């Protein structure tokens, strides 16, 4: 039995029955990382010593009958955008290269409180700016299903690490699709929770009115287990919601008979790869077969959602990146030579430390907020956000969930879009409208397409109203069992 290939719920059972120890699980994962990560390149940092220590502590707790719950001893990776005390946190950026946080993000603290063993920090597009990990200032992660292709992004390292069985589950962040798109491209389950459901304290900010933290896993049930551990109000994040956290796994329903599933016609208008369309159609047929009711709906402002999203995101990025000033932490020309004016410190430290995409976004964000353009771009986008949100509100008056594609294409080749920001931005066209609306959405693997003789996974997106995570898990869990595509692993 390959312990690293287990789902969290399978491993949790084995741990509970004392058939395996967390040390065995952790060692298996570490050995596997050593064997394959030079090719997949999921990890920026592997923290073997800390992981083994945490695993031993978990085993001691179990022996004493003091386990911390179903995640105790489970091995996970975390996107390198979440601060981990004593372990380098870089956002895959040169400006934060070597930065060691003095505290844990709330999500990290909650995982540790649940007994999770954190095995390493995963690669991303620097500051989560991108859809392929090619914008990482360090290296590109490879798709485990075809190493010549991208894993998607920005949480590409997290999705690849789960798909390649280099961990049992992971944590990603999603501002416009950064959990869902790589999950689709790597064939894993990724949930973008409701805005405000999970604390962002200690997570390096990208666009604060859109950012959420969520699970990436090998099954819907696993994603539900992780969300349950990390969700909830946090006094350290004023945007977190006070609503109670559901017992997602316990509450999973056994049927979706009568569930109304909306299909927005705007998402099927054009631009989707034909083979991807077939996978999505098959998922819709499967829902019908399971007794779900398919309802055609309209989200009339979909065409404007991409502009709305990007204008708001760029504006907020430019504001959030202003904290990297070469004075407090991170890359600074003052480290070489202290005789610089303050202005030189700002301009040169930032000019050297930020990669091309961060610079593009910083400038575009500055532009849409600048005198003379604020009304034409930023203010207009705030108004369009009202319309995009209203589209979803109206739709959820008629249906329980909405089903759409996640990405218009399967994983693309490394280098294919690397220097064309517009093409890269368009690869998020089905995921970005969700974030301005704040609603939760999952990417569930639904099938494969074949390219160059290799099977590439394709996901479908299931969207629910605010705080409708349970509804998503219910539909996703049943659809997952029926589609049954998880038997195959990317790397055996």
């Amino acid at each position, binding site marked *: 039995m390959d312990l690293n290939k287990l789902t969290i719920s399978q491993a949790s059972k084995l741990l509970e029955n004392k058939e395996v120890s967390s040390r065995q699980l952790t060692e298996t994962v570490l050995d596997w990382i050593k064997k394959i990560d030079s090719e997949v390149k999921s990890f920026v940092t592997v923290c073997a010593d800390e992981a083994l220590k945490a695993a031993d502590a978990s085993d001691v707790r179990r022996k004493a009958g003091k386990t911390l719950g179903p995640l105790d001893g489970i091995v996970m990776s975390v996107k390198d955008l979440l601060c981990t005390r004593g372990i380098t946190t870089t956002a895959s950026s040169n400006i934060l290269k070597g930065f060691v946080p003095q*505290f844990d993000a709330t999500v990290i603290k909650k995982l540790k409180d649940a007994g999770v063993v954190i095995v390493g920090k995963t690669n991303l597009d620097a500051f989560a700016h991108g859809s392929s990990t090619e914008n990482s200032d360090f290296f590109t992660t490879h798709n485990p299903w075809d190493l010549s292709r991208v894993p998607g992004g920005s949480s590409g390292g997290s999705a690849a690490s789960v798909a390649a069985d280099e961990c049992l589950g992971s944590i990603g962040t999603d501002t416009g699709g950064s959990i869902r798109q790589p999950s689709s491209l790597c064939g894993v389950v990724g949930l973008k929770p409701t805005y405000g459901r999970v604390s962002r304290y200690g997570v390096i900010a990208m666009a604060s009115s859109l950012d959420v933290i969520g699970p990436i896993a090998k099954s819907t049930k696993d994603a539900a287990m992780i969300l349950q551990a990390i969700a909830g109000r946090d006094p350290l994040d004023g945007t977190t919601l006070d609503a109670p956290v559901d017992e997602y796994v316990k509450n999973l329903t056994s049927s979706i008979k009568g569930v109304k599933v909306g299909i927005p016609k705007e998402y099927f208008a054009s631009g989707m790869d034909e083979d991807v369309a077939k996978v999505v159609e098959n998922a819709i047929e499967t829902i019908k077969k399971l007794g779900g009711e398919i309802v055609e709906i309209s989200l009339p402002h979909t065409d404007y959602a991409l502009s709305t999203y990007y*204008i708001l995101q760029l504006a907020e990025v430019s504001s959030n990146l202003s904290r990297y000033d070469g004075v*407090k932490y991170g890359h600074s020309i003052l480290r070489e030579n202290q005789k610089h004016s*303050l202005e030189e410190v700002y301009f040169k430290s930032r000019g*050297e430390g930020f990669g091309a995409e961060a*610079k593009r976004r910083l*400038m575009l964000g500055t532009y849409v907020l*600048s005198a003379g353009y604020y009304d034409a771009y930023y203010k207009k986008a705030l108004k369009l956000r009202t319309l995009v949100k209203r589209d979803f509100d109206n739709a959820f008056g008629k249906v329980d969930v909405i089903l759409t594609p996640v990405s218009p294409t399967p994983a693309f080749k490394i280098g294919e879009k690397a220097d064309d920001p517009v093409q890269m931005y368009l690869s998020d066209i089905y995921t970005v409208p969700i974030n301005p609306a*704040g609603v939760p959405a999952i990417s569930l693997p639904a099938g494969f397409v074949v390219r160059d003789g290799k099977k590439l996974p394709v996901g479908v997106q299931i969207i629910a109203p605010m705080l409708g995570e349970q509804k998503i898990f219910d539909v996703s869990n049943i659809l997952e069992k029926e589609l049954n595509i998880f038997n195959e692993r990317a790397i055996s």
Partner: protein
Amino acid sequence: MLNKDDVLHIARLAHLDLSDTEVEKFSAQLSDVLELFSKIDGLDLKDEAETSQITGLENVFRADEIKKYPSLTDTKTSELVESAPIHSGNEIKVPKVIEEN
């Protein structure tokens, strides 16, 4: 369409040093992205309200009392200060911004 001077102006506002090659490359790339937004040019949204956040939460306050952040209870001030390029004691040092006359 952004020309080189526009790019330099924006870079100045964003506190960014750019190389000549970057200025060249960015003026084309940034223009392409702005072109993508031209879709919303003609829209009349005069009567629509703005949405800057979607939770509806307002005035989230905490009690006005001195409290150590729970995640920082065992963190020493020196650890935080040592992240800065120049520091002494418990202080972060910055280049002088006011000239003596």
